[in-house]
């Protein structure tokens, strides 16, 4: 039954959150956390097999199925990683058990919020969920209570709340646009209804609404110039949260943006959302690429690379068309997997080296070969070099765009090239050269990292037809 599956995706995290808040003893909780995440993931996968039926509040269609499964999967692997990570944090006394209890419960709340945002059929509900996710991550970013952590959280909170406010205003405007057509009440906020009637909506209202939504949710996506919270939040929070932020939360916000883009695209008179998204995507990509060169903090560097890739994805979706949309989806998936895997590696590395400063780590492939080479592999993947998955998506984005908008394609490609330069410049210091810093062995569970890399690697060479058809359906859905 579809409702069960949907409810499961929401209830399991909710119950787990409550439970973890009650339970002391972080070891048990960590295991339970993994278990809960796994259950959620399984439930999510079951969505593929039972034909979903959408109610006025909840909705399952091809588009968010992809997102849900991706989210729950990365959530699961991250929970595995976080188990070993948090253990180390407690050993060195960076976190006290109280905070860990809080952490785990918040982790599940975050999962709940993201799943809710993805399955919500009601724009109001979706807004609430995304906001909940934001607030949870704010709390988790500040969890170390160091000056930097507090500053990052504060920055994140202020910018995030402004984003929230703008998004809400946009939502209200959408409702106002829908009301004269659909009539007052709940159904003027329900996706499935909105998309059917979008053509008659008032274009001017829709335009204003989209501007606010673009800026509001764009802040969460981390598009420049709204990105400011992102690097610090990634750098100062616990690494699992960095992984979840880059791998998932950005996607969720992107998902919201896509929904509204579809809505606007259905209205012939309203402004085309494509150009706006393309512009912001290009700006983010190029800007982030240049920012990579002066980074001294490893996590902050990869945060900027996330901005770059979000830019590419938004660019692809902005271009539209089946090929570009397919590429965008593929790129989003690959980026989530790769980037979270990179953050797993980075987490262990910074624990081994006892710092996040790039200058204090070096020759990693000599001291910790597994971590070092994994990082190299991750950077190769994120830089979009074959035979890994991101190359395929970037290939599709650039080549399909070049046929239509050569100028844009060239700008994008050069931005990517600059980004490659920045990444490898740092990688040389981190992974090669004379070893620097402590050279202890890492007590780490490499499974999640390797799992992600394996998927990315295989996807770069062979994509199962089922997945392809699924993506193609979604691409067609996105128009």
């Amino acid at each position, binding site marked *: 039954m579809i409702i069960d599956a949907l409810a499961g995706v929401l209830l399991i995290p909710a119950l787990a959150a409550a439970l973890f808040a009650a339970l002391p003893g972080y070891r048990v909780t960590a295991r339970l956390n993994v278990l809960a995440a796994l259950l959620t993931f399984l439930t999510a996968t079951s969505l593929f097999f039972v034909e979903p039926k959408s109610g006025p509040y909840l909705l399952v269609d091809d588009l968010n199925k992809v997102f849900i499964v991706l989210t729950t999967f990365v959530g699961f692997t991250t929970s595995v990683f976080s188990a070993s990570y948090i253990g180390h944090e407690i050993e060195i006394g960076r976190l006290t058990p109280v905070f860990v209890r809080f952490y785990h419960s918040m982790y599940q709340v975050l999962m709940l919020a993201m799943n809710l945002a993805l399955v919500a059929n009601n724009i109001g509900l979706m807004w609430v969920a995304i906001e909940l996710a934001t607030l949870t991550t704010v709390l988790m970013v500040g969890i170390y209570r160091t*000056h930097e952590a507090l500053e990052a959280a504060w920055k994140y909170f*202020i910018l995030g709340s402004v984003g929230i406010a703008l998004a809400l205003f946009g939502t209200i405007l959408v409702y*106002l646009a829908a009301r004269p057509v659909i009539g007052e009440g709940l159904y003027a906020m329900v996706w499935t209804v909105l998309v059917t009637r979008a053509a008659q909506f008032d274009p001017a209202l829709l335009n204003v609404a989209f501007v606010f939504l673009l800026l509001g949710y764009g802040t969460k996506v981390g598009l420049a110039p709204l990105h400011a919270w992102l690097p610090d939040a990634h750098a100062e929070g616990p690494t699992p949260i960095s992984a979840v932020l880059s791998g998932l939360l950005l996607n969720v916000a992107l998902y919201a943006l896509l929904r509204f883009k579809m809505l606007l695209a259905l209205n012939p008179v309203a402004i085309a959302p494509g150009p706006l998204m393309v512009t912001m995507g290009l700006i983010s990509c190029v800007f982030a690429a240049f920012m990579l060169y002066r980074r*001294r903090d490893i996590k902050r560097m990869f945060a900027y690379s996330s901005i770059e890739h979000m830019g590419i994805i938004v660019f692809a979706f902005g271009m539209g068309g089946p090929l570009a949309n397919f590429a965008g989806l593929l790129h989003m998936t690959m980026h989530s997997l790769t980037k979270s895997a990179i953050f797993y590696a980075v987490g262990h590395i910074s624990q081994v080296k006892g710092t996040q400063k790039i200058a204090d780590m070096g020759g990693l492939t000599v001291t910790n070969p597994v971590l070092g080479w994994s990082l190299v592999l991750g950077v190769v993947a994120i830089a979009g070099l074959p035979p890994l998955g991101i190359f395929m998506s970037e290939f599709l984005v650039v080549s399909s765009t070049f046929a239509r908008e050569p100028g844009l394609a060239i700008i994008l490609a050069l931005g990517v090239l600059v980004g490659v330069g920045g990444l490898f410049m740092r990688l040389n210091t981190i992974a090669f050269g004379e070893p620097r810093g402590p050279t202890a062995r890492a007590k780490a569970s490499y499974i999640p990292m390797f799992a992600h890399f394996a998927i990315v690697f295989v996807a770069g060479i062979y994509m199962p037809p089922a997945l392809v058809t699924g993506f193609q359906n979604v691409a067609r859905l996105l128009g």
Partner: protein
Amino acid sequence: MRGLSFDIAHMLAGSLVLVSFMQLYQDRLYSLLNIYALHALVLAASVAWQAFVQDAPHLYLTAVIALVFKAIVIPTALHRIIVRLGIHREIETVVGVGPAMLLGMGLVALSMVVMLRVTAEADPLAREDLAFALSVVLLGLLMMVTRRNAVSQVVGFMSLENGLVLAATGAKGMPLVVEISVAFSVLIAFIVIGIFLFRIRERFDTVDVQALDRFRGERR
């Protein structure tokens, strides 16, 4: 009746914009908070009037929330904080009051232009309200941008939220979920801000955001 109700709603919304301007005008934290209370008061009034006009009883709830939380609880709490931090008199603005006012004018004009393009058959009430709400939002944002001081930025943020409430209530028949979420958000916002202020109190001797900005994560 129709015309009168429209005029009153219009007047209330307009006065909300006016109060936002008064906020921009303040240069002392203490009086700023008072003006914010007034802001919330006007909001409550307008929400109540909307409730009466649309005879939507649930809006009264929103009005009460606005009245209690925003007009009374929050200002008093903030008073406490600033008194305890001993920063109730100083307040540094980035641009002088005059330029801020001019910017505000420009923003209001902009929001008018944008909103009046909306086709009129969406009922005029909502349309005018929207124009004012948008101006309130923009003014709140302007305030956050032009003040250096954390408390005043929070105030700016909250007046921004007031703009949202105005818009939401202006939207006829919008489901309750929204108001609740607005109040909810303000509540959360306030709690979290409070937590932060306390943590900041523990760590630093001022809530000046610049003090936070001393730590850039990356040493230059």
